[in-house]
Each structure stands twice: as C-alpha cells, then as structure tokens.
C-alpha cells in the first residue's frame, strides 16, 4: 500500500510545524520518495536523531506502507 506525497508532507508538518518539506517522487510510481526536511527542531541533534524525529512523525509508516523514503535533513537557520 503506497502513500501519496501530500500525506507524507502533512504528517511531517504536524509533528514539526516549522519544517519546510519537499517530497520528490523518484520513480513516479507513488512508492519511492525522497524527502528534504529543514527544521529548527533539528538543532543540536545528531543526524540519526534528526531522522528519528521524521520517522516518528510518520508514526510507523516508514518501513511499512512507506517502502522507500530517502531522507535528507537540514537545520533551519
């Protein structure tokens, strides 16, 4: 079961309201996405912790309905 990019963006923004989120559908198949997330909430966190925040925002969908999400995070200035 795939997820549409709007719901991915919405879930991330609900958890990280200041975040700027860009989602690319890598293969146009609704199943392989890349997400670029910039948020001030990442400040002081390791890369692992930053990704964990995003995974937590997706409430268990990552690795299940959401098969492939290449994630890149950055700290908002």
């Amino acid at each position, binding site marked *: 079961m795939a997820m549409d990019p709007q719901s991915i963006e919405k879930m991330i923004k609900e958890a990280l309201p200041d975040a700027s989120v860009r989602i690319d559908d890598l293969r146009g198949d609704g199943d392989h996405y890349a997400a670029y997330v910039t948020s001030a909430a990442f400040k002081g966190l390791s*890369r*692992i912790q930053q990704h964990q925040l995003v*995974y937590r925002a997706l409430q268990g969908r*990552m690795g299940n309905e959401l098969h*492939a999400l290449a994630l*890149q995070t950055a700290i908002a200035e």
Partner: protein
Amino acid sequence: MSDNPVFERIQQEIDTTPVVLFMKGTPVFPQCGFSAAVVQLLNHLGVSFKGIDVLSDPGLRQGIKEFASWPTIPQLYVKGEFVGGCDIIREMSETGELIELLQTKGVPVDAAA
C-alpha cells in the same frame, strides 16, 4: 530496553565484531538496493565487515528495528554503535565523515579510496 531475547543476540554481534551490517541478503548477494549500496560503499573503502541477513530470520528483522528505534534496514554498527542507514551512510561517505569515523574508531580503511 526490553527483555526481547533478540536484543541480547544483536548486542553480542555488535560487541564482538567491529563493523556489522544488518542487511537484506548477503554481502555477495544483496536482496535490496539500499543494502547493496552500503555494501558497495564499505567495499570501496576496503573495510572488512560482517553482513547479517535479516531475511533469513523474521525475529531479527523486526528486533533490529526496535533495537535502534530505526524503522529500516540496512543498519550499520561500528564498534557497537549505530551509525545509520543507507541515506546517512551515503551522506557521510560523500562528506568524508565515514572514513573519519572508521579511522577514529580504529577500523582499518583503504585511505586511497
């Protein structure tokens, strides 16, 4: 930590082997593009590592995700510490942080790579 018996096994693996990759398939025959990408990066750096196939063990496949609070596989561990999945390893390899980390942890790498 919970009392999941799989955790004990994972802990033992990452305590006894300096570089461990939990992956889908084996280093010779990866069964997933993300696992294959990390294997390729490690091989390129000349790092010797132990690949553990989670597909052959459903308990381990689920357990490793809970162990690191990390929802995806592959997962790379260096000297007992979780380093990241495919995206993070790729990013660290591009910035040179991966070589730096391995060298800091005393893992032999092919510095010419």
